[in-house]
């Protein structure tokens, strides 16, 4: 399997899970990892986690929002930012076409949704990436929305929570994408120097330029169980080394073992854990709420 097939497989899996919302109740579904046949309702009531193997299915942004934020508390910002095709990138498939396909399959305009909401009544700036949108890649729009989120959080003196799911920088916008790494890192650092809390959550998969910029610069790093978390794709490493990689390499468990993240938290416990962290670190004497 090539790296591309691997990425594609992940994208399809992500899309499959997103589409499940449209599937009527009462239909059986198959876990993509263990093959277990699951009652659709059971997946929904179990935080989109396979009850058999614990596989965390990919979530669409608003599914994540409804699980993590207080009901009805979320208001999106910068929704009208739309990607352009500044390089007129024409690969095997023109960038315009990839964008249109992504917009059609996900119903989103770009690979991230940002805004403000509440977690157990704590007001937070919140961003969630959509891996189903061109592998959750960061181009000009994602970079701009992340930067504005941190700037808005500074103005409001609120913590930031981001949920990452990304293959890295978006190739089709070339160096404009790479520069978003510098731009977002600089915005995170300003928020940091203002003494504000940032919690970053890695979901399956979090890699490349997103992991190597804003997503890694949080005060607290959390990963969902069994998520792929790594800088380089496994195929790239295998090609470099000319050998197969050890089992469990570049997973949230190995990240934890090597001291790279604070904790692994199952989806069902994510809201409580995040709320506890905010209560302990988020406001101090500021007590905005």
């Amino acid at each position, binding site marked *: 399997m090539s790296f591309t097939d691997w990425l594609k497989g992940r994208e399809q899996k992500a899309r499959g899970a997103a589409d499940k919302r449209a599937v009527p109740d009462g239909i059986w579904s198959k876990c993509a990892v263990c093959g277990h046949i699951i009652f659709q309702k059971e997946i929904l009531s179990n935080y989109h986690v396979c009850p058999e193997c614990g596989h965390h299915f990919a979530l669409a942004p608003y599914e994540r929002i409804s699980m993590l934020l207080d009901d009805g508390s979320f208001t999106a910002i910068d929704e009208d930012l*739309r990607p352009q095709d500044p390089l007129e990138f024409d690969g095997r498939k023109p960038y315009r076409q990839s964008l249109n396909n992504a917009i059609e399959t996900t119903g989103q305009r770009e690979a991230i949704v940002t805004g403000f909401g509440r977690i157990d009544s704590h007001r937070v700036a919140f961003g969630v990436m959509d891996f189903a949108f061109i592998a959750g890649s960061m181009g000009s729009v994602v970079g701009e929305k992340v930067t504005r989120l941190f700037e808005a959080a500074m103005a409001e003196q609120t913590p930031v929570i981001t949920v990452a799911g990304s293959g890295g920088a978006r190739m089709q916008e070339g160096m404009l994408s790479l520069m978003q790494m510098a731009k977002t890192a600089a915005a995170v650092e300003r928020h940091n120097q203002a003494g504000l809390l940032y919690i970053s959550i890695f979901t399956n998969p979090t890699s490349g330029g997103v992991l190597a910029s804003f997503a890694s610069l949080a005060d607290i790093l959390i990963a969902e169980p069994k998520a792929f978390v790594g800088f380089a794709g496994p195929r790239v490493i295998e090609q470099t080394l000319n050998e197969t990689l050890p089992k469990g390499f570049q997973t949230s468990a190995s990240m934890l073992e090597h001291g790279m993240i604070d904790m692994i938290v199952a989806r069902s416990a994510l809201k409580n854990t995040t709320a506890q962290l905010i209560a302990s670190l988020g406001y101090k004497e500021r007590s905005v709420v």
Partner: protein
Amino acid sequence: MSRRFYMDFERPVVELEERLEELKKHPAAHQPDIAKEIKFLEAQMGRLKKRVYSNLTAWQKVQISRHPERPPFSAYLDNIFHDFIELHGDRSFGDDQAIVGGLAKIDGRAVMVVGQEKGRGTHGRLKRNFGMAHPEGYRKAGRLYKLAGKFGLPLVTFIDTPGAYAGIGAEERGQAGAIAECLRTMSSLPVPIVTVNIGEGGSGGALALGVTDRFFMLENAYYSVITPEGCAAILWQEKEKAPEAAEALRLTADQLVQLGIIDGIIPEPLGGAHRDPQTVARQVGDSVIKALGELSPVPAEQLKQARYDRFRRIGVFSEGKESDERANRSNV
């Protein structure tokens, strides 16, 4: 002088050069008719070089940037800087040989200099891991950035890497986090930063030395979000499409000036920097000295704000209702 290594598109130049050398060595070279032939060939040579090297494709430039005889960072360190004191190690794991840094003087001014070193010869290149740093390299760089900030030394960085190393140890020791920390540190460093890309600018591994106030590129250097080969493998699903990917990615110095990503281009002799390393080094030195002169009087807060704004405005997108769309073309 016959070169050991040349690229396919250089073949006519190299062949003619070799013929010229042979003729010149000939015992009868001083005879009028042969001298005339030599003169003729030399004139032809000039025209041929111009034709071959003046309109290089993006892929040909990528090849030149990777030329085994291309001067590495150490050549610039030796030629432009003096009183260099190398500082080693990341204080936690090791001393990465792919990134070299320390205190130095340039034109009498004390600076911190940090650069990616590819090494020379097989042994040298292996020792330097072909300029591909591990996390400890980026952590060493970050440590030296902070040291520069603490003591008010301007920072000069040199980029030349195919990318951050992709390997088991690199991942286990947090390659992504190490790069992210460099971006964070540079973004708020209270001293002037000047960067020169002297060859390969491979993605995040290059950017970790590039959150800067002035960014120069050698004429045949490239700077890209992904290697052309990597891009071809993913988007075309065949590595052989690297030349097409190189074109599509807009990774050459002149294209990056147009995109508003870099500030200036430092010219190279026809054929590449390896044809006249001294002259290229002198021009690189002049650009760095001039930029440092411009940046040094600027107060720290102003420098930091200008650096934030520099990256803040990069990005192309549209905003507003579909009907009255306001496109942010930034510098483009």
